[in-house]
């Protein structure tokens, strides 16, 4: 077995184990028999299994994949190991837009949320592009700028929460990232985006490998670099935004997943993309499972748990790349 096959099957096995664990456990423990019979015939535990744990399980996997692939694309295009949708303020922009709409129009159909979050994400991305357009930024400068924009956007969310204190709870989700209160209604609007953008990013894979050789070499080898940059960045922003639209700014997944994937299978995108997606799904699913199981029936925000892993790693990365 190659390293790729090993990572994929190992990760897949881990995901299945985690999925089973998260279906069985929570504020109320269920036996394997109960869960299996509920999955097929509904019954007494219908709500807990079919309308609560199952949709959350799928959302965690989808969102994790979306954030991870978004991270791979941004890191490849910006050629910056610190780039990720949340650190660059794209998630913040999407979160701010979704949060604004939810606070002012609480009755809105969840199907609109991805679209609104997309607008916010693209606005933030454009802002970063515009601020950086005058000079080729160094990786650290870009990261700093992104952190500044993220901080600005989350202070905007804070300001909104002060203006609309009554609905503060649904909005807390946007600040920390959580899958609380998410059901099937949130999966359907997420699915079409992921079903098109994930295969599309795989289609870009070999071009991204060539792009890593530098603009000139890539052009000489037949890649339209400008077009590639635009397509990959648009997909990255879209993937991050629709993920944020559903469960808020779950941080550091877009940063961690690509790095771990690179450690496992190297930097060839054809191999790295699926592994990163798998790792992203594992990260968000384990964060959400922990969030439900650490202190039941109290729920912790999943975003805080990914930050506990992600923040030290970010510091480690900053430390490792000297000379910025």
């Amino acid at each position, binding site marked *: 077995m190659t390293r790729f096959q090993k990572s994929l099957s190992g990760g897949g096995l881990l995901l299945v184990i985690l999925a089973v664990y998260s279906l069985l456990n929570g*504020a109320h423990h269920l036996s394997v028999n109960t869960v299996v019979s509920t999955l097929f015939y509904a019954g007494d535990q219908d709500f807990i299994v079919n309308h609560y744990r199952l949709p959350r399980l799928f959302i965690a996997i989808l969102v994790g994949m979306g954030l991870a692939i978004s991270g791979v694309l941004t890191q490849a295009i910006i050629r910056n190991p610190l780039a990720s949708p949340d650190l660059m303020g794209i998630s913040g922009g999407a979160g701010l837009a979704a949060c604004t709409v939810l606070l002012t129009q609480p009755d809105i159909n969840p199907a609109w949320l991805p679209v609104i979050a997309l607008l916010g994400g693209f606005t933030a991305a454009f802002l970063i592009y515009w601020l950086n357009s005058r000079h080729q930024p160094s990786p650290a400068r870009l990261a700093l700028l992104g952190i500044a924009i993220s901080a600005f956007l989350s202070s905007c969310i804070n300001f909104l929460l002060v203006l609309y204190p009554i*609905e503060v709870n649904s909005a807390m989700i946007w600040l920390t990232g959580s899958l609380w*209160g998410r059901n099937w209604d949130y999966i359907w609007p997420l699915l079409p985006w992921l079903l098109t953008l994930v295969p599309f990013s795989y289609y870009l894979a070999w071009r991204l490998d060539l792009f890593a050789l530098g603009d000139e070499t890539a052009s000489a080898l037949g890649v339209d670099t400008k077009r590639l940059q635009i397509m990959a960045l648009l997909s990255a922003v879209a993937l991050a935004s629709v993920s944020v639209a559903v469960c808020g700014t779950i941080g550091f997944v877009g940063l961690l997943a690509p790095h771990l994937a690179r450690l496992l299978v190297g930097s060839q995108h054809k191999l790295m993309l699926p592994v990163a997606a798998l790792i992203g799904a594992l990260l968000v699913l384990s964060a959400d499972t922990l969030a439900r199981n650490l202190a039941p029936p109290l729920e912790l925000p999943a975003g805080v748990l990914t930050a506990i892993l992600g923040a030290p790693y970010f510091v480690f990365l900053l430390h490792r790349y000297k000379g910025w």
Partner: protein
Amino acid sequence: MRFSVIYKLLFLFSFSLFSSQSFALKIDHDAGSIEFDSTPQRVVVLAFSFVDALAIAGVSPVGIADDGDKNRVIKRVRDNIEDWQSVGSRYQPSLEAIAALKPDLIIADSGRHHSIYQDLTRIAPTLMLKSRGVTYQENLLIIEKIALAVDKQSRVEKRLIEHKKRMLDFKNKLSNKGSFQFAVTSEKGMWLHSPYSYAGSVIEELALTSPLPSSNKQVYLQSSFEQLLSLNPDWLFVGQYSDHSVLDKWQKSPLWKMLTISKSQQVVSVSANVWSLASGLLAAEQIAEQLTQAVKK
């Protein structure tokens, strides 16, 4: 043969029509209405004011969103109900913990739980009523609505009459004693509760004045030391959410002596659980009692 089937259907239809007329009770709430065929037995509540309402109705909820701390339900309420299961925090109650209790009625806060209303109705019929930012007068109507839902009107009506008598007694003892302000404090700051808050509206109900300008429409106002100085209430009741608060710092300031409450020592420490979280009828009586005691000294 065919006719007999039709007759049977007609018979069944008329029977069901008749029976639904005799049982169904319809209650309107903030997100729609519920029809009850029978009296709910297993009630889960997601806010403290509803626990108070159930306690006076003599119904013990099976689950409460008590933030994982049973002491948050004030003693007077706790003494009147049996033990319950926690279903998590009021901000993010655990839906699986609620479902596991198999309730036949959920009472949720329309100010807080809007986003999970659909999920709650999948578990059990759900009443959405105001709890966060509810005023004393609004809550009296909500108490009657809850009494109707659990079929305890006569008991609750009796208690309400007694309550109004008690409040009138307190009111007579308290007349014309200056301006009263309630605030909660923590390390992060101080929040004044206006007459639109629960404690504020109880103070108003007792015909005591508020130091806040009448133009204010906000429920909770974050206040700096300077704002407190300019309001200068005659009485300040403080509920602390943490052991240390900004008040400790303010009390060391030389300006603190400028306040009327400092000269007359009219700063009274009270329980934030009773004055702010509980927002119920039993809590209102306790608030009135503590006000009267403080003024008598």
